[in-house]
């Protein structure tokens, strides 16, 4: 279900419970490998589309975003690459379940995918992305879409053992490119147009 309303409820972090599950290792062991794999995939399937989810919780009356931390340095949004021809919403649900859903299907959240709040483009097989496709590039290599996901009041998340799930306040992301990179550090701007009801209980 895609909602386009500009307001959303966000619930306290304490409403959510977190468990763990088997590790979900990265497929690539180095940036170079990753880019190489990206290149191969591009040849086979064309431009990659990836989708990521912005999951919000509330603490101290301020929105916090759930990020997966890999090792101690890198934070990323839950999400991933779509299969060729896959619908974005369905694909995002699949990725969320894969990253954060418990193994027991009965307990997996019914993900409510909201609107797409940001689109980033990767013009070359490199790590740099931009919020637009540069004018001289006609064949971008990847398109990443960020979706707002509306969590229900209570959920259970199972986090892979090799990852940590952090709830990071928006102010921590804002203007903090060095730590989070351009995509994540500009999420506060993307979300600024929403009104969030900080539900407390």
């Amino acid at each position, binding site marked *: 279900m895609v909602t386009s309303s500009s307001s959303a409820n966000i619930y306290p972090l304490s409403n959510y*419970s977190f468990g763990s599950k088997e590790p979900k290792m990265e497929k690539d062991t180095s940036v*170079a490998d990753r880019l190489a794999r990206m*290149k191969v995939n591009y040849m086979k399937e064309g431009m990659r589309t990836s989708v990521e989810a912005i999951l919000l919780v509330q603490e*101290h009356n301020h929105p916090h975003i759930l990020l997966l931390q890999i090792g101690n340095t890198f934070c990323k949004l839950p999400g991933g690459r779509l299969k060729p021809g896959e619908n974005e919403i369905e694909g995002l649900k699949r990725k969320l379940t894969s990253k954060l859903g418990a193994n027991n299907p009965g307990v997996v959240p019914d993900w409510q995918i909201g609107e797409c709040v940001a689109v980033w483009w990767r*013009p070359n097989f490199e790590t740099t992305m931009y919020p637009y496709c540069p004018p*001289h*590039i006609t064949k971008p290599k990847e398109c990443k879409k960020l979706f707002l996901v509306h969590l229900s009041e209570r959920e259970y998340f199972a986090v892979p053992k090799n990852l940590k799930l952090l709830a*990071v306040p928006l102010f921590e992301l804002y203007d903090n*490119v060095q730590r989070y*990179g351009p995509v994540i550090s500009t999420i506060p701007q993307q979300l600024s147009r929403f009104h969030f009801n900080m539900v407390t209980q």
Partner: protein
Amino acid sequence: MDDDEEYRKVEDQVDHLHRNETISAVAEEGFLIDEDDDYEDLYNDVNVGENFLQSMRKDEDVGFRNLPVEETKTVPPPPPPMVAHATSTEVVGAGGVGGDSFNQNQGFYDGEVKGLSESGPVATGGSGWMRVELAPQRPNKVSEAENVNANTNAPSGPQGLVKHPDGFAGASVNPVNAGPVGGTGSLPSQSGIRNINHAGGSSIITAVPTGSGAANGDGGGTTMLFVGDLHWWTTDAELEAELCKYGQVKEVKFFDEKASGKSKGYCQVEFFNPTSATACKEGMDGHVFNGKACVVAFASPASIRRMGDAQMNRNQQNSQPSVAGLGRRGQNDMGPKTSGNIPSSGTFQGGDNNRGFGRGIWGRGNSQGMGNRGALGPMRSRGAGMGGRDLMGNGFGQGMGGALPLMHPPSLMGPGFDPAFGGPMGRLGGYGGFPGAPVPPYSGLLPPFPHMGGVGMPGVAPHVNPAIFGRGPMGGMGMLPGPGIDGPNIGMWPGNSMGGWGVDDHGGGRAGESSYGEEAASDHKYGEVTHVRGGWPNSSKENGRDAERDQSGSSDRRYPDDREVANERDSPREKEMDHDREQSEMRHRDDRDYGRERDRDYDRDRERSRDRGRDRDRDRAREREQERHKEERDRYSDHHRFRDSERSDGYEKGRSSRTLSKSRLSQEDEHRSRSRDVDYGKKRNLTSE
């Protein structure tokens, strides 16, 4: 401490990343993550792929990775090393392929191996980048992806495949390998190793010695061309449509500004066949794309960069005659760096531009200079030398040196450059220049704040809102077409409302400098600049802050890119001491400024608190709110710290670690708040929640 060590390791690795593409086993793997690693390559200004970076590194011997899959088929990991050494020295000779090879096409082997390919993996060997390509003979071979000419970044070169054409002989001139390879004994072995491409697909490899100096202009690799003088909006498709008329194109690699993604107006084109390349050079040189005649020249990867730099400089200079002197001087400074600095080759471009004010800095703030953190590396050291505040304050001196007289001293410091910030130092040099040139609108104040996004914001702490920077006619700043804006861009950018950029963010124009100033001060952390002392103190303050932040936060900064930033903050540290007192002056701003500081030093907090106390009457409400934010942030930053250090339990298991850490944090907060002034009783209340 573990964290630091790990962090450092990561930093190193990241740095090496560019060079080697390999991450040592110890690196955290998380480090290189799946799709989201957008920021690791921050320093790779030129989107030509990792290969380019590698190519510049002389010692790399590494397995090059970038690529491709295709390569794997045959690559014999082996020999390269041996080849590498030998070749690097010899081959180079000239860059290769330089003149003689021209005829050879393939390979350059005559006698001296000009083309020696450094064997695959290394590809870069000492001389820069060696791309091995087997062009002439087997155009079809390229089955692999390489074919795609779309801006693939994968340089065919380094791919590690060195396929030496045994068969090369077919067409070429003497095969090469035999011996002559500049005396690289390895050559012969190479042939043994390499398989000629026939089967498979290995990518075509031609040795293209990039030779550092070389490139005499023509003959680079004979299959490689430099196509320049393009508009930034001339697309790869348009170019390819024209290129395919001359032969099968192997690859087109555009050079673009890292910070913005915008094309620099030149690219590297590679054909499979040298005759195609020649035909293209002759036929397409001067072809008009979108109303502008392009330039086509033979080039090797190294020389392409040079030509590109020259083009950028030309553009800059066209628009900024006044800074010529500056530029020159900067150039001197940068010169050595440029050559030495790999990733920055693209970056330097930016750096060079900075001299001239960074093309586009005015326009966008994302000028190359701005965006280039990497470039700053070398600059940084110079800045450090500068030391304290005097004048150059942030090390502007480095580039500015002689140029200074041109600028308004205050303006130099104005922007509150935070040297710590991503090595803006280097950039700052450039910036310093700015005021000199355009001057008027700025009132000498801040250098163009260039960056909106925060990346590449020179000298500004990341969390500073760039828009604020400008005090004054930010709009003007941005808009100034004069300095640093390319011809074609001039018309365009202003249209972009550079001014609007800053303006929009902050509600409107900078026109009212004074009115904005207050707000800006409150908004930014380090913003000010303009006030008091010509902004120097601010900058120093900022430096100090950042330095502090960096210091205390270094362990927290896990992000790979941080290493550059962290490194570069070292120099500002010395300044930070001096700034304390200044900070007290800035109390008004301090509140806000510190609010955002993430890993601040608590001593400073105390001082500030004290200062704030004095101001309380004035901005009580705002302070309170800021304090609260600060508390929150402190808490969070502590949270991060804990998190980082805590590798065990809660975090790893994916439990609600946040809850755990939070409790810890609250205790910490309590302590902290107690240490603050009594005035902050309110704060305590907040923190104890």
